[in-house]
């Protein structure tokens, strides 16, 4: 636990009209860790992702990334600093071939910086990235239109867009949901490899079983509040978490 802090979230809040989507949430994350974020539907997981990555403005609180206060930064600048994200609702360019989807992130100043001047042909680099995350099984897939991809590949494409930036931290919003057991099984080694490469991950998931295998630490949200934080076994036995998932107020079904 000696790795340095990469992300500090301090007392962050956000409400939409009367709904407190995120209420006074704080946590810290060390470099190279995987943080799992769980919570029933509508508990504010995506909102937390949006707040960290600058896609919506916070009402209050502070976010420190690599020692920099990024609280007021626009989204593109946060991504430029190395904090990338995926979207729960995938955002491909449907009319472009898959590999061309990666050209815009590879065109970014960050990608040029991190490549140290030897980026070469962006299309070729894009294919390399796609192969890294499992597009190699069918060599034609990178040339298909992104709109025709099945869900599993779309989720991977979201991850590829992040990897094109060579990020230090990736916030993944439900990249397992909707995938089959075997697809998830093939994603898990990938996430582990990213961790080995030194990338810090925040994974928002409903698939608790798989997530708990990966995560070093888990954070539980309910109605926008952090109700528990700790390692997997603590969370499993936490009374408040059990109540949030099985209790009367929510209708969430444990998968």
């Amino acid at each position, binding site marked *: 636990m000696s790795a340095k802090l990469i992300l500090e979230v301090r007392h962050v809040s956000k409400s939409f009209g009367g709904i407190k989507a995120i209420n006074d949430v704080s946590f810290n994350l060390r470099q190279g860790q995987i943080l799992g974020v769980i919570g029933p539907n509508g508990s504010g997981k995506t909102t937390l992702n949006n707040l960290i990555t600058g896609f919506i403005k916070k009402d209050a609180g502070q976010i420190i990334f690599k020692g920099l206060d990024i609280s007021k930064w626009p*989204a593109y600048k946060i991504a430029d600093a190395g904090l990338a994200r995926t979207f729960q609702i995938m*955002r491909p*360019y449907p009319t472009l071939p898959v590999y061309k989807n990666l050209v815009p992130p590879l065109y970014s100043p960050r990608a040029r910086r991190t490549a140290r001047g030897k980026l070469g042909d962006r299309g070729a680099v894009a294919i390399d990235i796609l192969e890294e995350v499992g597009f190699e099984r069918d060599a034609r897939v990178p040339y298909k239109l992104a709109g025709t991809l099945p869900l599993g590949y779309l989720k991977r494409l979201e991850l590829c867009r992040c990897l094109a930036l060579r990020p230090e931290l990736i916030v993944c919003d439900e990249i397992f949901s909707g995938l089959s057991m075997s697809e998830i099984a093939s994603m898990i080694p990938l996430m582990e490899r990213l961790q080995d490469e030194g990338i810090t991950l925040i994974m928002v998931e409903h698939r608790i079983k798989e997530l708990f295998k990966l995560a070093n630490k888990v954070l539980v949200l309910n109605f926008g509040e952090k109700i528990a934080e700790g390692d997997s076994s603590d969370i499993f036995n936490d009374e408040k978490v059990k109540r949030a998932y099985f209790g009367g107020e929510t209708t969430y079904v444990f998968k």
Partner: protein
Amino acid sequence: MQERRRERLDRGVKVRSDTIYAVSSAKEILFLVGPGLALVTVLLILPLILPPYWQKVLTIAGVYALLAVSFGFLANFVGLVNLGGAMFVGVGGYISGVLNSTLGLPPLLTIPIASVTGALLCTLLLLPCLPLRGVYFAVVSFIYPLATVMIISATGVWGGTDGIAGLNVLPNVWVNQYVIILVVLACMFALTRLVNHADIGLVFRGVKDNELAIRASALNVTWYKAQAVFISAAMGCFGGAYLTHLYGWVGMSLFAMDFSILPLAATVVGGTSTIYGPLVGAFLLVPISESLRSFGTLRIVFYSVVMVFCVVFWTEGIMNYLRRRYEQFERWVRV
């Protein structure tokens, strides 16, 4: 009862994947580049065969085609609907007019200078509106030329309502026609390459269709919009500067609504998914509107009717329709 169904088949070139053509013979290459060659040939030959009056119309149509290409590029490939195209024309026109009348610079210098500095100026003016989306950007951009005309007539700068007369004119009718035709064609080819093949073209298209993904890709949306506006404005300013030296006069009419609206109509008529659609639309609409000159301002009604017709009944526009017929053929099959 026998049912019949229409079937569409690709003709000509085989497509290996969704995006890669397998070109194997001269015939197939001709199939791909033929339409472009035909367009270029027609535009280059027209000045030689048209009677003098229609040569003038061709010149003006060229200016409108340039404006239409500039409008279509911003609207279809960057997602900015600019209803203030007249601002570009006016700014370019006045810069070249003032440079010519005060410093005595020749058109050969004033036109390029006006294109670049005018584009910079227009981009700076539009910068505050770039974060606006959709109809908000359209409305604000529409205000700019109207407001500028008010300022000129109220303060009387640059000749006020009279404008500045006695400027240098372009040498002769051949230069007039070929300069504008070559510039239009060059812009069309450059932009087509840009939006289809250049990496920054993909970023522009992302700004239009998928802004969230662009921001998540560490790209500053406003900066890329500004670059696109600069490209579009440079074309508009060129058009204005060219008109100034075509007439040897610059005045408030360069800010007239025609310059904002006709490019929009040409884009709707020509088709919205290509760079050359608006160009073809302009070369069709301008001569038609010219032959209706005796109806005066009723011509605006004509544009409106054509536009409404296309929007309601023929959304794909001429060029998309022709392209479809060219690339595919239809036949009836029994089912």
